[in-house]
């Protein structure tokens, strides 16, 4: 990797780092309970809860750190943190 002078770095290149490997718990989204309010997407610190075409939401598990904010904030309790199996 050629060193770029000025410590200049290309934008968004952290995407190479898949932080999904960090988590112990993973959020499971139940669309049946979901009211499509979007609060989960707003308050995700990684910005990886994405709106699907049908208006429901789904996290990108490659980056989800399992912090649990989405589950804690969901007004419909539609998100549950589940211990991830090996």
């Amino acid at each position: 990797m050629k060193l770029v002078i000025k410590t200049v770095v290309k934008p968004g290149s952290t995407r190479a780092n898949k932080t999904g490997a960090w988590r112990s718990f993973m959020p499971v989204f139940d669309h049946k309970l979901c009211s499509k309010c979007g609060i989960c997407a707003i308050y995700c610190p990684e910005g990886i809860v994405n709106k699907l075409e049908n208006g429901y939401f789904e996290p990108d598990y490659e980056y989800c750190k399992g912090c649990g904010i989405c589950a804690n904030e969901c007004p419909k309790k539609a998100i549950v943190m589940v211990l991830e199996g090996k």
Partner: protein
Amino acid sequence: MRKNMVVVEGSYAVAHAVKVCRPNVISAYPITPQTHIVEDLAQFVADGDMNCEYMNVESEFSAISALIGASAAGARTYSSTTSQGLALMHEVLFNASGMRLPIVMTVVNRALSAPINIWNDQQDSISQRDTGWIQLYAEDVQESADMTPQIYKLAEDEDVLLPAMSCMDGFILSHVYEPVILLEQSLTDEFLPAYNPEFVLDPKNPMSFGAFADPSTYTEFRYKQEKAMGVALKKIEEIANEFKDIYGRYYGGLIDGYVLDDAQIVIIAMGSIIGTIKDTIDELRKEGESVGLLKVRSFRPFPTEAIRKSLKNARVIITLDKNISIGKNEGALCTEIKACLYNTDNRVPVIGFMLGHGGRDIPIHMIKKIINKAKLVEKGIFVESEFADLREDLA
């Protein structure tokens, strides 16, 4: 040539030189004896003679920090400082060099506190020699002015891209009135192209400047800075010659010699003291003394090869330092000259004299006294380094 000369204050000549280099952003903070430079620049701006942003900042730390932001955004930048101000900038100097931003600063050399003293010595810039900034030292007012466009061209060279300080002795050069030729705008536009960096802060092409580098990547940044200094060694000579072709004046490249080639006693020095030494040598040569001068113009990058080549016939070398590394009992030039000659066959005695601290005057008879001490070396009397101008009544 004389027709084009005007008698102006040294600071004015430098401010005028900065003006014709067309900087985009200037940051200013008052500190004696550089203040006249930024005051003159302020007047140029107030009269509409300069098209730039002039920032009156709240400290030298912010003066240089603002230029980091401005340079990263693609501006040609300028500030001027001295002594305590330069010391306050210490942290940012490393930062500017590591980020490879070609910021240009005039350092009007002044002694450092404590004790507080506003007069000339070179402790301030010498203390910053490890920061990764280019350092050039001017001999007189004309050279101080001439150095300005040269140092911009050098710093902004795409294979250099290092910040640079142009050093001139405080009061001696900043406040003296000398006849000089003010740099012509048309010649400067020809000599110095607009600053056009490859990477800038630009929403159309976003980049991140100033990431953190862990042990696996940090060393190579330092290596690249060092390589850039190596390129600067060549460019300093080239640029000085280009300047001579366009403006007709030459003050040396990395170094300059004055009746040096056959000299058996060689004095090595930097800055305004060069003028006094030249006068001393003229007198001594009339008396048949074999004495010559090596002027070091570029202190960083240090011109090892050039210096080694120039000292072929020397039997004794004297270094004069207007600075001291306390605890080593030597000035920086002395240490670095000795180091430069160590691994060569030319290991003639080098004796170091520290003088002129806090602006103490250096008259011709003092230089002669020093040269006489050099003659004692041949008799086996060798004092490696000493204060040349110590007052016995106060010591």
